[in-house]
């Protein structure tokens, strides 16, 4: 239901990097960014989370995936500020002796990768199918959009659960671990490409009738060139806003699936898995096992959503 505009835009020429940077500095977007402290805060936060997550192997005291590195003697240590806290377990350890901070950083990495990859997958599939459907029309359009209708007629979360559940029921154990992340990416991407496809299709339908496209067709410019160079740039604004917001949604979906026990397995915990495991100890006084991963998850999704929100407002001329 969100209001998005397809602002007419000239096709970008291949400008040198310096010019581009200068352009960015002078742009409305940059101005709007500097004027919104919440957007700055969100970007800084997300960057911090992403950097620490991807540097996790270098900065954490422990590799939480390495079973041999876990020492049961060090289990259930409270956070460092507690009287019983111990160095180097800043946020304490879980019941297996896994350092919570390390688990959170590695878990964030998994959550970010799965979220990003699923958005990327949905985006590329959605853009490709949307362009094809809108540009060519006819039966191709019909088939693609009908499949989309069917997918949209089932609740998002349900499709994702079904895909992961069926995959894990039919895969042998040895493959399950390896494929857990790809399956999740696929499961989250499947129901979400339709949104992109619909947006692009609408724009492609309009553009395909315009004179310059007709002219390009006449001089036999290839179809994919027309789509890539003329149609796609025109609908990138709403697509980018949707993709940003969907990134937050994808991270949430991954966490939800893992929390329900159909996502990442306990020996490769994502944030959702950590919360699921920690939830068992909610009443045992081991609050840190569930609270810290929850905070991290909320912070990630919050910062992504704040960026998405700001982008939408900044790019919507009506609200300016």
């Amino acid at each position, binding site marked *: *239901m*969100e*209001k*998005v505009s397809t602002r007419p835009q000239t096709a970008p020429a291949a400008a040198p990097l310096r010019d581009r940077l200068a352009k960015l500095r002078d742009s409305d977007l940059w101005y709007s960014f500097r004027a919104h402290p*919440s957007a700055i805060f969100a970007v800084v936060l997300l960057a911090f989370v992403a950097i620490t997550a991807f540097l996790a192997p270098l900065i954490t005291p422990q590799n939480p995936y390495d079973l041999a590195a876990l020492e049961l003697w060090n289990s259930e240590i409270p956070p460092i500020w507690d009287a019983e806290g111990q160095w180097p377990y800043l946020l304490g350890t879980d019941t297996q002796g896994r350092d919570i901070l390390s688990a959170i950083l590695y878990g964030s990495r998994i959550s970010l990768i799965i979220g990003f990859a699923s958005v990327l997958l949905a985006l590329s599939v959605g853009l490709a199918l949307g362009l094809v459907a809108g540009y060519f029309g006819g039966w191709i359009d019909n088939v693609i959009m*009908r499949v989309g*209708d*069917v997918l949209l*007629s*089932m*609740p*998002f*979360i*349900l499709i994702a*659960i*079904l895909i992961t*559940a*069926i995959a894990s*029921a*039919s895969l042998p154990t040895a493959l399950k671990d390896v494929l857990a992340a790809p399956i999740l990416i696929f499961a989250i991407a499947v129901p979400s490409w339709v*949104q992109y496809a*619909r*947006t692009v*299709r*609408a724009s492609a*339908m*309009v553009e395909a009738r315009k004179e310059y496209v007709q002219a390009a067709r006449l001089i036999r410019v290839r179809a994919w060139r027309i789509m890539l160079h003329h149609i796609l740039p025109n609908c990138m604004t*709403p697509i980018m806003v*949707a993709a940003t917001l969907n990134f*937050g949604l994808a991270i*949430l979906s991954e*966490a*939800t699936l893992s*929390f*329900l*026990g*159909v996502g990442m397995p306990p020996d490769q915990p994502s944030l*959702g898995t950590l*919360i699921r495991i920690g*939830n068992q100890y*909610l*009443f045992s006084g081991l609050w840190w096992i*569930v609270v810290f991963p*929850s905070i991290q*998850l*909320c912070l990630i*999704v*919050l910062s*992504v*959503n*704040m960026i998405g*929100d700001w982008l939408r407002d900044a790019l919507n001329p*009506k*609200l300016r």
Partner: protein
Amino acid sequence: MIAFLIKRAANAAFVMLAVALLAFVIFRFFGDPVEMMVNEQATQADRIELRERLGLNDGLITQYTRFVTNAVQGDFGISYRNQQDVMVLIKERFPATFELVLVATVLSLLIGIPLGVATAVYRNSRLANALQLGSIVGVSLPSFVVGILLILGFSVTLGWLPGFGRGETVDIGWWSTGFLTPSGRAALILPSISLSTFQVTLVMRLVRAEMLETLRADYIKFARARGVPTARVQWRHALRNCLMPVITLTGMQIGNLIAFALVTETVFQWPGMGMLFIQAVTFVDIPVMAAYLMIVSFIFVALNTIVDITYAWVDPRLRDDTARAGGANG
């Protein structure tokens, strides 16, 4: 109009057939039904005989037709785990989910609409900014985290409200309701808050956007210029104009809420359809999974179709399908 009606109905039927195909594929090919049904001592001959009796040797189209025919009559087979008619299981659970979703929806409207109006009317005030930020926090909090925190706070620490189950229920015919007992009503509070968090922010943001749009419209400016009191303009004229999209959104979201209730139901051990489904998933109880998929999709499709038809009835311009193609975006 009739032509449009038929077209929409045909469209819905097509979608349901496709969902049924998906459910059928899951039912037929994942987890061999024969292996799931016989006990381990069964001989090969028993298995072959059962395969024949279940009609698994027939052509796939015949099998699919039979699956759809049975499904239309509400026959989804027997649960592998509970050894009970799947439809009976779902029928027993439906009231629990429905009441939860109903309360969550009402909550989302009661909280979301005033907040949305406030943020639009007092735009750029400190309150509105705080509410705006709050709404982003609202969509960013995973509903299971909200549930866990609510249980920890109100059920364990304070001991005010129950943190699991439905409390006492009263049967009216086959419908079991929790509305009529104090413990049933108390049990509804935390789960419905947890389920409605996301929906509240959705309603609030929609109302805000619509209000901002409407407040700029000429007739509002005109009304103001004529000296109609501001509050009256805002609450009577402007709000009334944004209610239609809110009702549409609410209608369309009910399907999503029913599906999302499965997370809430898992956290609160709420004995609804969602928990039935999640348990079916862990136990690979395929008939229950297939039936749940079809029933929830049916509710979803039916609601969407009704909303579309209502809209077309209100605004004849929308009867042309191509006019909608550009707008559908979320």
